[in-house]
């Protein structure tokens, strides 16, 4: 069972207001991240304030090195913040250990990467199923079938990653990311390694996921066309959000 500290960053509503109040699924305040390279401190995030509601499809755009990926890694619990508040689905990262963040990631987050990041020794089927295995709830054949059919990869399940095209690999990666029904899907340049046709297929699928399952999606991209499919575009520069 996933147990973690829950904090409320926003002021608590009165009883009368409570039924109308919607708790944001992601909330950051003054989020900072500093990497230390040798003796030099390199700030990656310089105070990010972000509120995301459940079911939103957000694109984060900005030049290289502006802190987009760092923001994604922190929101996914892959690394901790240096300062500021991060609350994701009621979990305050300041109060969570590495092990807590790992459990959080297992149950609440799905990642899609630019380089697909499939395990090369496993078939497409096993690459998807391993996420269920790690989550510990066992193999769910119904969910597996629904997801693979929706992504159009039923015929490719016995193939290893090297035998799949880039688009197919990314669809397998999306299937792996959503197979455990995560609260948030974090996509880091999901179309960065794909041609235009495959990029469109992947973007359509992300859009479909968002519409059909109200899947919250935070997508990093350099591609303005890709950002165009999102409901909301956040622009970052020098570790800060410059427009929302």
């Amino acid at each position: 069972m996933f147990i973690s500290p829950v904090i409320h960053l926003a002021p608590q509503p009165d009883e009368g207001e409570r039924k109308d109040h919607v708790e944001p699924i992601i909330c950051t305040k003054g989020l900072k991240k500093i990497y230390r390279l040798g003796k030099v401190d390199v700030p990656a995030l310089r105070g990010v304030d972000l509120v995301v509601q459940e079911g939103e499809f957000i694109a984060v755009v900005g030049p290289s090195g502006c802190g987009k990926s760092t923001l994604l890694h922190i929101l996914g619990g892959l690394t901790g913040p240096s300062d500021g508040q991060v609350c994701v689905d009621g979990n305050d990262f300041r109060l969570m250990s590495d092990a807590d963040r790992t459990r959080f990631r297992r149950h609440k987050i799905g990642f899609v990467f630019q380089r697909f990041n499939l395990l090369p020794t496993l078939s497409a089927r096993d690459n998807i199923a391993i996420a269920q295995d790690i989550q510990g709830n066992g193999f769910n054949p119904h969910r597996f079938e629904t997801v693979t059919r929706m992504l159009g990869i039923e015929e490719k399940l016995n193939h290893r990653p090297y035998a799949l095209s880039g688009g197919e690999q990314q669809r397998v990666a999306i299937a792996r990311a959503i197979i455990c029904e995560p609260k948030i899907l974090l996509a880091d340049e999901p179309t960065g390694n794909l041609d235009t046709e495959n990029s469109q297929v992947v973007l359509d699928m992300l859009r479909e996921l968002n519409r059909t399952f109200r899947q919250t999606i935070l997508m990093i991209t350099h591609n303005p066309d890709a950002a165009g499919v999102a409901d909301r575009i956040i622009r970052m520069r020098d570790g800060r959000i410059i427009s929302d």
Partner: protein
Amino acid sequence: MINKLIISNILHRPIRTAVSILAVAIEVGMVILVVGLCHGLVNESAKRIEGVGADILVQPPGASFLMGLTQAPMPVKIGDRLAELPHVLAVAPVLFVVNSVAGLNVIYGIDMDSFDRVTGGFVYHGVGGPLQAPYDILVDDVYAKANNTKVGQTLKLVDHEFHVAGVVEHGKGARLFIPRPTAEDLQGVQDKASIFYVKCTDPAYTEKTAEAIQTLLPNNTIRPIKEYMALMTSNNLPFLNAFISVMIGIAVGIGFLVIFLAMYTTITERTREIGILKSLGASKAYIIVAILGEAALLAAVGIVAGIAGSMITRKAVLALYPTISVDLTWDWRLYAACLALMGSLLGSFYPALRAAQLDPVDALAYE
């Protein structure tokens, strides 16, 4: 699923897998064979002494129970005094001659009559018969097979030529027998014996007779054959124990280092994959189990290969060197398997721990 991951990783890197399995197999095979050779040597030697058929061994004061190491022969006339004791049926004096040319052999210098009375006589293979001339020699069938020795042939041992008078059934103390006076000439002694084999009229009188011999020869080493057989284990041979321990240490060290190196390089090679698992929420325990599971599977296959290899090697050794005995026991196979498994798990533990502690962001960025 974790089992699939382990198996697929092992199959994905066939050379690394083959080398790791081979290292574990060598480790296991080496432990089993070294112990088997040592035990075989001791057991076979003990069985041959038992096969003489004597009830009591009489040796010089402070003599080792290892035959051939006795450097202080006793006067042969002691045998006459022993023969006069009650319940003594026969006494056979034997003088040892150690031949180190073309292998190490203890040659028994015997008196045919007394030796036959204790042993019940040799069983001869084919033509040939007892020792008659001073430089006659009897060889046992195992020695004859190993050296392709035939009756009538000349054997050069301890710088002398011997005429093979007969080939006898193995198991009567030594593999080579010459007349005791000839052995005395070779040793430069007269009327001496290295050991007396004493046979009682009834084995039930063994202890009583041994006590009587001890009273008669208070400084000599008197051992009933049962006591001797109990002593003839590798545990009672300190140098053999040390040798076995050193060889086991080397074997386990090889296995440990190879598995350590294989798993360490694997972790470096698979840093990105570990990052992927971490991004999926895999716990440290999950990653440690995956790495240790891989090492355990490599060890298990290596153990099976090592046990099979030791059996094949034993057959080959026995075919090439029939005088060597290799005793492979299941308890040592189990012990070798446990050592290999423990060595492999220990060897992979640090790489597993290192993998579990990798930073997921760094691991995902690893090229």
